[in-house]
């Protein structure tokens, strides 16, 4: 075969690969609230952001904290958000908003586990608009990942190919005006409501069976250096841009705390010492008496033993957090 013909075939092969890939992405990738979060960042006006894990996602309602702090904040915590993600989310947020404060929600379990390459792994990367931050993030996180996760984003949703109703739902959503307008309405369900400022309000379900299947326990021996690296990057970035940096650990149910007392104590000691050494403001709410402030950390107020709060519990906690942030703000000034 002549070389010119070869090039045509190769070009055709690549074009077909891209087209099929885009088609499968369109059909299989669900509408994600991360897309809304990153879009809302571009609208600007936020002074505080919350970054970190799913405990923060379900545990911090910015409307409640803002009412006390008097600032405008958004919750960028996500399930499966590691420090690398938090760091780049902060950079992306600061690109559009002159941030005053970053509150990092620390879950010790995330410091000792590698991110699994599941559906949450590349959601943020897909949702970020094209920018230098996106390129940096891609280089930092996606290059080392399995090529199926990065080149074929539909890979993590491939089982949905057998579910016509899911495909139908994806297609209908993506063709709707709400999708084009970055509306959060499609995320409403009987179990939870998503709010525009990034808070996932989990509805209370009486007599629900509760598990601890996503609980990640602390073990200092398993500490992952990469988390340290990005913690320092985040801290330095905040310092360079005159952004206050606060770290908090959200309370888990006292039943979980009691069952895994040793691991939680060890994590508390480790991070308290570490933050002191780093001169970072840190509060581990597991070791603060919250009952005097009307907050009961019992599993009846949580969706699970892992530590995901019900909406009304989260709203109560958010008020406490708002007070804490105010107090810190006063102390700093």
């Amino acid at each position: 075969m002549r070389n010119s013909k070869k090039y045509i075939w190769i070009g055709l092969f690549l074009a077909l690969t891209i087209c099929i890939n885009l088609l499968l992405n369109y059909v299989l990738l669900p509408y994600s609230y991360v897309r809304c979060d990153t879009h809302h960042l571009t609208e600007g006006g936020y002074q505080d952001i919350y970054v970190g894990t799913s405990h923060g996602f379900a545990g911090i309602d910015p409307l409640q904290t803002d009412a006390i702090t008097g600032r405008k904040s958004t919750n960028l915590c996500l399930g499966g958000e590691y420090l690398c993600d938090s760091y780049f989310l902060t950079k992306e947020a600061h690109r559009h908003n002159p941030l005053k404060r970053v509150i990092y929600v620390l879950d010790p379990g995330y410091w000792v586990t590698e991110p699994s390459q599941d559906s949450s792994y590349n959601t943020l990367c897909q949702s970020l608009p094209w920018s230098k931050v996106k390129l940096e993030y891609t280089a930092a996180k996606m290059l080392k990942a399995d090529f199926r996760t990065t080149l074929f984003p539909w890979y993590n949703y491939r089982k949905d190919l057998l579910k016509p109703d899911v495909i139908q739902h994806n297609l209908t959503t993506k063709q709707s005006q709400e999708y084009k307008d970055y509306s959060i309405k499609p995320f409403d369900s009987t179990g939870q409501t998503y709010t525009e400022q990034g808070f996932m309000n989990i509805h209370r379900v009486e007599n629900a069976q509760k598990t601890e299947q996503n609980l990640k326990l602390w073990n200092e021996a398993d500490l992952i250096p990469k988390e340290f690296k990005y913690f320092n990057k985040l801290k330095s970035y905040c310092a360079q841009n005159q952004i206050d940096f606060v770290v908090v650990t959200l309370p888990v149910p006292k039943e979980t705390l009691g069952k895994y007392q040793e691991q939680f104590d060890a994590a508390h000691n480790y991070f308290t010492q570490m933050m002191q050494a780093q001169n970072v403001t840190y509060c581990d709410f597991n070791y603060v008496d919250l009952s005097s402030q009307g907050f009961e950390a019992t599993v009846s107020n949580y969706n699970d033993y892992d530590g995901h709060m019900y909406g009304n519990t989260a709203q109560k906690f958010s008020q406490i957090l708002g007070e804490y942030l105010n107090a810190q703000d006063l102390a700093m000034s």
Partner: protein
Amino acid sequence: MSLTSLMFIIFVLTAVIGYYCIPKRYQWLWLLFFSYIYYLSTGARTVYYLLITTASTYLVGYFMSRIQKDKDDRAARRVNRRLLVLALLLNFGMLAYLKYTNFLIANLNDLLHAQLNFKDLLLPLGISFYTFQSMGYLLDVYWKKCEAETTPLRLALFVSFFPQILQGPIGRFSRLGKQLFTSHTVDWEQMERSFLLILYGFFKKMILADTVAPIVDHIFGNPTQFSGVFMIIGVLGYSAQLYGDFSGGMDVVQGISGLFGITLDDNFKRPFFAISITDFWHRWHITLGTWMKDYVFYPISLSKWMSRFSKYLKTHLSKKLGRTIPICIANILVFLIVGVWHGAAWKYIIYGLYNGVIIGISGLLTNCYRDWKKALHIQDKSHGWHIFQILRTFLLVNISWFFDRADTVKDALFMMKNTILNFHISVLWDGSLLMDNTILHIQYRYIIVIAACLVVFIISLLQEKKITFAQSIYTWKPAVRFVLYLVILFVIPLLGQTPMAEGGFIYAQF
């Protein structure tokens, strides 16, 4: 940098495009540069071991060739032998120290009830492969089978060539060296074949090996929980996993080399069609087998002490035994080393010995086999006998996998005993195969693994019948070929599973 990462794909593409764009005389330097980038990105902390091996191999090879030219034959041989022994001791000593020190300490602690502390040793990536490849080169120079390389950087490329450094194949300087240092132009046909080989390799790795891996891990990890049928499922699954993983990895590695116009030695030749254990080792991890044959088996069986021993046996026992017993001993020694090479654990030593003893005894009983076949009127060329031999070998190989895969020799023996004494065939239909759904989508896994095995079996059968799939594909119309590539390309993410460990090639740990 894992072979399955996006970074590796970009790395290879950059290396290939650059390779054909730069002036041809620099192509080998380009490969060396990329080989070291690859090694540094994967095992930067242990790169100095690679440098020591490269430097010692180059210097000893260079001086041996100089001495051969300058001195008379006898004196040169004496000095060269000393140099060779020095290099072998240094390199194999380094390998042994890094790989087996903690194994030795554990055994000494057990034996002497001592409390010796374990060493914190980091095993350099690919050390078993590059050490064997380098020492093979030195032995070839010593035996004058090849000329010593005079350019140190060229030898460095031979030792570190990036596609093969992590899991082989173990190359020979006479074949690989030439290809590495000659210039290449784009050969589209080879490019296409290489691309197909890479796709097929990922198919075997991601659809066969990674899909069956959790089932195998679960059974071998909890041997006491399962009955005999599960032991069989576990060991058959391990056969599929190991073959898919290792040969799939080899296909990827060979495919990547092919993109540079470099053909690596075959490491697999349809091993499950082998008719004896000897034949199996001519088809499985071929480059290790031939390395052992050339550098261990022949030197032992042709050594002075072995020929004296052979003479002694011929005089005191019989001519035949005088010929076969030394070969039997050499075989057992070779496979003992193969076992030790696989890892620092007793189970690997038993695995090696098991293979060695079967091959050794087969050699001793050759005449008996002939007589038995005659008595039973078995035709050597009959299909039935051929299939029986394949099944018998497959069974023997699977028994050896128990030692290779189980955590300990005790577990392996327990599983073998369980296979026979606690069979419980009813688990095949009472729903136990679903293992209480402890493994995600287990029913799909079974279906995918069986389908993938069928695909691999059909392709292997065609190859066994001398119908080379890749070559026959090239005679098809381009449109049909490209559709086939597209199908394979999309089947890999569609049906493949993500391994538990990143990268996850079994032989990359050696």
